[in-house]
């Protein structure tokens, strides 16, 4: 980054942090700038990385007429700009939704269900490991019981579900702790930027 870029970046960083004191014009400016730049950037990227290589080049240079299909679907999407076009836009939405549903079915079945089943069915580790393997199995069955909807949580099933919720809470606690860790890391990096790259009071990387 050039010094001018560093100063702009530092200014914008401080604009955002000023929100911690209270909502103010600097923050509002930064927020609106952010919305515009982000939306504009996404558009530019889609143009350069999708519309040019996947529509323009194959159509104009290579004369692949098949490209007319996605182009037509895309234009149908734009028909939504008018109230009467809603019906036409549905066709494009239907295609889009169909593709991603179709990808999801075998994708989830394989990588999320079968992979986990296969691993859960692995023989127990020897020694103390077996205790852990057994706990994992019990927790797994308990949480599955919790997510069983067609029976009331009573009797053995209720007890299993109760156990399941405790396992869930420990897992949530773990995620929680890690999330705190992640956000703190991001703040550290921001402060490093301000102190090192902008103010030069920290040694360089």
């Amino acid at each position, binding site marked *: 980054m050039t010094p001018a870029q560093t100063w702009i970046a530092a200014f914008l960083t401080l604009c955002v942090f000023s929100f*911690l004191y209270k909502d103010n014009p600097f923050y509002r400016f930064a927020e609106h700038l952010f919305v515009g730049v982000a939306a504009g950037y996404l558009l530019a990227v889609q143009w350069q990385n999708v519309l040019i290589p996947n529509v323009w080049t194959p159509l104009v240079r290579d004369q692949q007429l098949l490209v007319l299909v996605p182009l037509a679907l895309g234009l149908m999407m734009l028909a939504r700009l008018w109230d009467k076009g809603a019906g036409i836009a549905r066709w494009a939405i239907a295609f889009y939704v169909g593709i991603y549903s179709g990808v999801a079915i075998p994708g989830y079945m394989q*990588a999320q269900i079968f992979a986990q089943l296969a*691993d859960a069915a692995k023989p127990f580790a020897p020694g103390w490991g077996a205790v852990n393997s057994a706990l994992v199995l019990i927790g797994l069955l308990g949480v599955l019981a919790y997510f069983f909807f067609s029976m009331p949580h009573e009797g053995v099933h209720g007890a299993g579900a109760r156990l399941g919720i405790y396992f869930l809470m420990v897992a949530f606690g773990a995620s929680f702790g*890690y999330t705190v*860790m*992640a956000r703190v890391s991001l703040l*550290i990096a*921001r402060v490093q930027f301000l102190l090192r790259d902008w103010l030069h009071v920290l040694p360089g990387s």
Partner: protein
Amino acid sequence: MGWVEKLLSIDRRIIFLLVGAGVIVPLLLPVNLPVTVTPRVQAAYDAIDALPPGSRVLISMDYEPEIMAELMPMSIAVLRHCFRKHIQVVAMTLYPAGTGLGEHALDVASRAEGAVRNRDFVWLGYKSGFQVVMIGIGENLRGMYPVDFYGTPLDSIPMMRGVNTYAQLSMMINLSGSSAADYWIQFAQGRYHAPIVLGCTAVMATDYYPYLSSRQVLGLIGGMKGAAEYERLIDVFGDGRRGMDAQSLVHLIVVLLVVVGNAALFATRGGPGAPAARPGEAPPR
């Protein structure tokens, strides 16, 4: 108003100041607390370390600047490790804004280890569409990337000789800040059986333990702390380790806030000054 109520109604800006100080002070006055290596990071290191010199790995750096704090230090550390071991790197990103970051990581790491572009690494840059790219590499890498980021045909790059699918790559290393990691597991690992080492943000880390257990992922580097551990393993002092003092202190502050908040509430429970519960409030499940 008793002291407990006063404490509970403290201005949140005082807490913000506390957090700010918790980050700034240790950065200015580091004590360099020790970093212990955890088993999952060790496993990631070992998996990469076990590759023979001359192996080729695919590294996808799938993150944008807002979370580079967590992923850039580990990208540099992993790349340095590869270069040091003479493992050739095919690098790419699935995010347009990741191109500058990936280039930067390669630049820092290659300079530190004396690696050379097109001999020790190739930079493919950005391509759009997660699944499209991942399946594309599984079928025909040159179909996806006829040329590298700088326009050099892959066919004229010596280290790319014979490389055209996951089958010719010893490992897929994903340094990811998003669901791209799930797709790499689903496609590169699930469909094409590439061994995967994953580096991700700390938030994502706990979600991948089932995949570690099922060996769909061989090792896991989580967040800035994971990067710090990796830096220790390859014996360098980077941004990961530099941040660890502040990380420790702020964690301590957050824990204290939880404890104090709960203790204060406990002290007032049932007392005359107890804050009335909001209508509709129920215990969280």
